[in-house]
């Protein structure tokens, strides 16, 4: 079990909705995305697979290169691959921007 935290100060667009997508099943994860009152983005991850901090950072860097919402994201992960992580994040964005 590993806890990871990342901050993205440049993501500062105001967001008003929240989203919950995904299931903590094998190879999958859940995302809770909600407005961050601090005016920038914060990500916390709880994963059952240790030692993949740099992979998480690479996926999140790429995600926040395109998404600029000031959101607080929490992820419960049961071994989602980087591709699945990106899809779940994009799915959450789809919900809050509906």
């Amino acid at each position, binding site marked *: 079990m590993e806890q990871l935290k990342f901050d993205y100060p440049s993501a500062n667009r105001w967001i008003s909705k929240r989203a919950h997508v995904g*299931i*903590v099943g094998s190879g999958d994860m*859940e995302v*809770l995305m*909600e407005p961050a009152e601090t005016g920038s983005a914060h990500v916390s991850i709880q994963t059952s697979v240790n030692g993949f901090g740099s992979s998480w950072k690479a996926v999140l860097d790429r995600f926040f290169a395109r998404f600029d919402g000031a959101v607080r994201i929490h992820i*419960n*992960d*049961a071994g989602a691959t980087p591709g699945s992580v990106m899809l779940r994040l994009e799915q959450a964005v789809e919900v809050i921007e509906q």
Partner: protein
Amino acid sequence: MSVATVIPAFVTRESFIELEARDRAQALMDPGSWRELVGPFDRIESPWLPMQSIAPQSDDGCVVLKGTIAGQATVVIALEGGFQAGSIGEVSGAKMTAALDLATHDSENGRKTAAVLLLETGGVRLQEANLGLAAIAEVMASIFALRQHAPVVTVIAGTVGCFGGMSLVAGISSYILMTREARLGLNGAEVIEQESGIEEFDSSDRALIWAVFGGEQRVGMGVADELLQDDAKEIAAAVQRCLKVGLPVVHRSQQIDLYRDGIAALDTSQQIEPLTLRKNWNNKQAKTKEGSA
């Protein structure tokens, strides 16, 4: 030839099995009538799973929606089979119990509130052992209290099915609705094989598993009430029918003599075939129904 005749209804239907727990619950309720109690953003997770290096889920795999079904006040409790096989832990059990107790409280105070349980579960969450067992006992006590006032409808759609302690919960509910894909049993196939050997039960034999635990067999035996297609609308309609009928004259689990006699009459000197069992048990039930009418 119109499109409808080329594409069978089964293809164009909205599958219920393919929905996640939250979407299943919503599919049964009047649109806009419901709100979620203790949802994922309340973040009441299992404290025990992370200690065992297992990622928890923000709703602990239990979704509680309160609202109406065809105008009838109802609480829908849906277990998420994708998370830890829908197993019952301390948090998910407490959510179920609290939701059922609120329904009883409302029913006692003039607002009759029924319950619908969407059970996709392997039973007690072994990582939370005793707390899970205690939770099953509490859920059962809460159902006994509620079913004096309003019906408790269990839906087992699949594909996890309903096993272990939660099969007892299904057993004491007012009605059980199943699909052909669903399974219902106390011990699952793998548990039986592990405990009694492959000669007793081959858990890789899917035909055998469904012949024993499957929805068609369970409804055929009379231990479940209705066999439904995997169709969200059909399942919603069946739940509405149950709520409209209200409480059964006698609950299945009150018919102790019927089932005790049934078990006593089993001839275990030879292998009992699922189809024979279905025929014998169903006849017995039909007789009782005639007798009581």
